[in-house]
């Protein structure tokens, strides 16, 4: 489903991602771990198009996407939950989530201005989709609150709901569990498992190795922009390279 081949990206001469190749199969849940500054978020940004690649190719659903702008990739079915919460200000939680469905519909300015019937139909459908997504991440009761006043944890859940509302094929989660306490982490894990059961392909960055291990089929380890290990979680956790670079004595 997703094929990343020899992708590199540097900032002012320093490589953040270097010759990374990575294949994710349909329905697979793949973890990405690595030390701070290893290039994980950069890789996500390259995949979703928020950064352009210096070299290499990215294909999604059999199609070259590395020259497409981010919104086109989103419309093909990629959704990302950023590491930093990016919540839209001046909107309610529900409206925020409804934005997620933007790529699924195409009622433009004209049909909105004229209130064409199709537009109304779309609106209703988007509203319902948003409510379902909010339900799923446990934000239903917050739906009418102004989104920018939510505590950080809820803002992150909101981002996830927004991503889900787009009905993606591939979901990229950048540290979704950070800032969540045990109970909520548990709920998130359950949600990921459900999504996986629904057949969604997921890429997951997370520093909570236990969390990753439990959820993923496969782990890719990045260090200094390069892949240093790739395999089933148990195997990777025992890899001496990974232990030295990342897990330290803590594991």
């Amino acid at each position, binding site marked *: 489903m997703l094929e990343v081949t020899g992708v590199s990206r540097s900032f002012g001469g320093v490589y953040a991602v270097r010759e990374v190749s990575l294949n994710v199969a349909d329905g697979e849940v793949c973890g990405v771990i690595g030390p701070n500054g290893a290039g994980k978020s950069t890789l996500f940004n390259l995949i979703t198009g928020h950064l352009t690649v210096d070299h290499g190719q990215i294909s999604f659903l059999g199609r070259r996407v590395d020259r497409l702008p981010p919104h086109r990739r*989103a419309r093909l079915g990629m959704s990302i939950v950023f590491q930093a919460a990016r919540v839209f200000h001046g909107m309610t939680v529900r409206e925020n989530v409804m934005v997620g469905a*933007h790529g699924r519909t195409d009622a433009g300015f004209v049909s909105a201005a004229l209130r064409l019937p199709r537009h109304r139909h779309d609106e209703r459908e988007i509203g319902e989709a948003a409510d379902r997504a909010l339900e799923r991440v446990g934000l239903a009761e917050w739906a009418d609150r102004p989104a920018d006043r939510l505590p950080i944890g809820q803002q992150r859940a909101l981002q996830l709901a927004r991503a889900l509302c787009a009905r993606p094929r591939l979901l990229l989660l950048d540290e979704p569990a950070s800032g969540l306490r045990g109970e909520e982490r548990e709920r998130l894990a359950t949600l990921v498992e459900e999504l996986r059961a629904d057949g969604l392909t997921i890429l997951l960055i997370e520093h909570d190795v236990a969390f990753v291990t439990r959820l993923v089929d496969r782990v890719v380890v990045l260090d200094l922009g390069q892949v240093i290990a790739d395999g089933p979680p148990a195997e990777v956790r025992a890899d001496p390279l990974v232990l030295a670079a990342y897990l330290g004595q803590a594991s």
Partner: protein
Amino acid sequence: MIRLAAGLLAAAVTLALPAVLDDSALAVYILLGLAAIVTVGVSLLMGYAGQVSLGQGAFYAIGAYTAALLALGGVPPVAGLIAAPVVAALSALVIGTPLLRLRGHHLAFATLAMQLILLSLAGQLEFTGGDIGLQAIPQFSIGSFQAESAAAYAYLTWGGLALVLLVTHNVSTSRPGRALRALATSETAAASSGIPVGRYKLVVFALSAAFAGLAGGIYCFYAGYVAPGSFPVLISIQYIVMAVVGGLGTLWGAVVGATAITLLVQGLDSLATLPWMPSYAPSVLSYAVYALVLIVVVLFLPQGLLPTLTDRLSRKRPRERRAR
């Protein structure tokens, strides 16, 4: 329910006013309506999409010159009036394509510069009448009906405002409106929701330009005269002040802001030129009092007049709100 009633009341007052006002009050009423039309566009652009234009006066001018040139060229005024917003929007598309790569203050400057450049050209070109401008623009007419009285222009203006409000309301409360508000906060996050950020910015820029162009078209028929001097840069800044004072990102805020500022300016002017006023009264009143009122409103009602007002009202009836 209450909102509907308020709306109906507003509509009734709007319709009744031209019939009862005299010419001098009508002139203010018309210019106020025109300012409101432009300001709604500014508010849409700034308050919803987060893009600052310090050059909205340019599109006002484009609309006015378009209608004026067509009318002087013998084209029926209605066609000119329709062409005004269309040409303004098309110009916005052309100008906006490179300009909207700029953000924030850069965009603000570029739009300001665009207005200066356009006005400078209008002031030098032969066909725009140079600095003197275009005179003897025919009256507005539809078929055999000629708009001669100020009241006719008042209806035209406020009809235009109603249209602009309706379009803005419809756009802002639906998919494109949400997209605009989203990209105002984060273009990155908006793009990853599938929003074509560049195109949306361009379209909303063009839409706000169309509003300004419409106002310009009406203005040219009402005034019968357009010149570069009719569209100073300060006018563009005035629209922003109106939008902010009324309450950015609220539909009616633009109207409230335009009304408040226009009435303040006119009131102070009438006061300052009373015969017994000292000779420095015009400057002191038109400048000092205006400035003080502006500063106080902005500092103490930072949300703008309208949101503060509605907040006050709704705080009195918290239960009704929450029930919704």
